[in-house]
């Protein structure tokens, strides 16, 4: 299984620019030659107030309140760079619940 960047696309996150973020992330990943990484829209992570959210899976890194200017750091992380600590602000119990949901592959 390749790596996936899930970008939430529910109503609140769309109003905060998540569609633009998705398109821009795809471009930057392609420019970096990360052929094993796929960007996918995801309905919601239940943290819309902190959105737009990007979850890297199966690695399980959750970045919140992502802006276009954060994408280079996220792409860099995908290329082996450091975790982007400043965007890792979601409470751990919610993360755990959503990761378990993702693990099922159902949603």
């Amino acid at each position: 299984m390749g790596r996936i960047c899930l970008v939430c696309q529910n109503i609140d996150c769309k109003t905060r620019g998540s569609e633009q973020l998705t398109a821009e992330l795809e471009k930057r990943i392609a420019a970096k030659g990360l052929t094993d990484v796929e960007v996918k829209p995801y309905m919601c992570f239940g943290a819309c107030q902190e959105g737009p959210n990007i979850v890297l899976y199966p690695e399980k890194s959750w970045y919140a309140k992502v802006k276009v200017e954060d994408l280079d750091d996220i792409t860099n992380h995908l290329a082996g760079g450091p975790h982007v600590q400043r965007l890792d602000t979601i409470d751990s119990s919610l993360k755990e619940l959503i990761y378990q949901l993702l693990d099922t592959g159902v949603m």
Partner: protein
Amino acid sequence: MKKIATFEDWIEYFNHWQKDIGYNADLLAGYNFETKLGELHASDIEFGDYKGQAKWQRVTQIPNQSIRDALMNLIVYQGDTEFASVEQQKNLIDTAPTDYDRQALIRVNSEEMRHGWQMCYLLVNYFGDSGKLEAQKMLERRAFRGDRLLGSFNAPVNNWLDFFTYTEFVDRDGKYQLTMLSHSAFAPLAESVTAMLKEEFFHMFTGHTGLTRILRAGKIPIPIVQKYFNKWLSTAYDLFGTNHSSSAHWAYTWGLKGRFDEHEANVPAEKDKLNDLARSHYMVESAKLIDQLNQLIPADQPKLYAPDLKFNRSIGEYVGKTYSVNGELLSSDAFAKHVTEVLPTETDEKTLAEIINRKDWVSQIQMN
């Protein structure tokens, strides 16, 4: 119970309330009930007659008693919904379709209790004897007795379709109310609801993903799902208040409760249409969510929709009127028949119970 003098007294009362409604406190083990404060949108009052002045940190800074009373009323109504929702939902814990759903429900309940806790913290610590009394009364009303303050919060939540539809549409009203209060001139309230709002999104997520899983499984007939939409959306419309509400007008004038999009609004507020405006935003959002859900329904089946604004209303200009779910005015007899066709009946609940017993009615999620 003794009279509440301190917040510690209120906590004792809260523990008593949990026992009285039959909520198993062991389920909440590890959950930390606490007050949480978020960031203010602005340190100065954002709108209304006091715009530009520093936000009030204490009740004694509020210019007059009418404003203090209106503010306390807003807090009481918000808090009442939080405890009521737990009373409505607690019976579902033992029938959760999966461990994940059970865990999600307990999380939703815990956070609703915390939100009520937060509102009572404000009442007890800022509003003197009258606030303490209201915080006590909030734990004495009961959804199942029908004496919670708002209609939606006295309606029965009998099954998991009820729960998912409720969290999709009634909790979404909560998002609007909390967002509007997050602009409040009373800083402790604005800070409180900002933190509550973060948690509210998981509740809506639970509803939307739950409905998604129901439609993916394809076992519950769409007409039955539609009846639950009619039940909860029509009552959710009421939660925004009446058209031309004077209390909404004054809450805005006094800076207590803003517009949903106050932070980006660039036109003056129409103060006599504030409730209508919020409800309109809500209806647009609900329609988008229903569109998403409809994409999961096979082409040969009916699509879901939101009932007309005039249907089944308990407050405002349409109360007692005989409008259909499509907004058509019916005779009294035709309406009486119509209601049995578009709202859940005992027969529907029995049918649903049989489907739900078969376990394949919702896409299963297994905890790893």
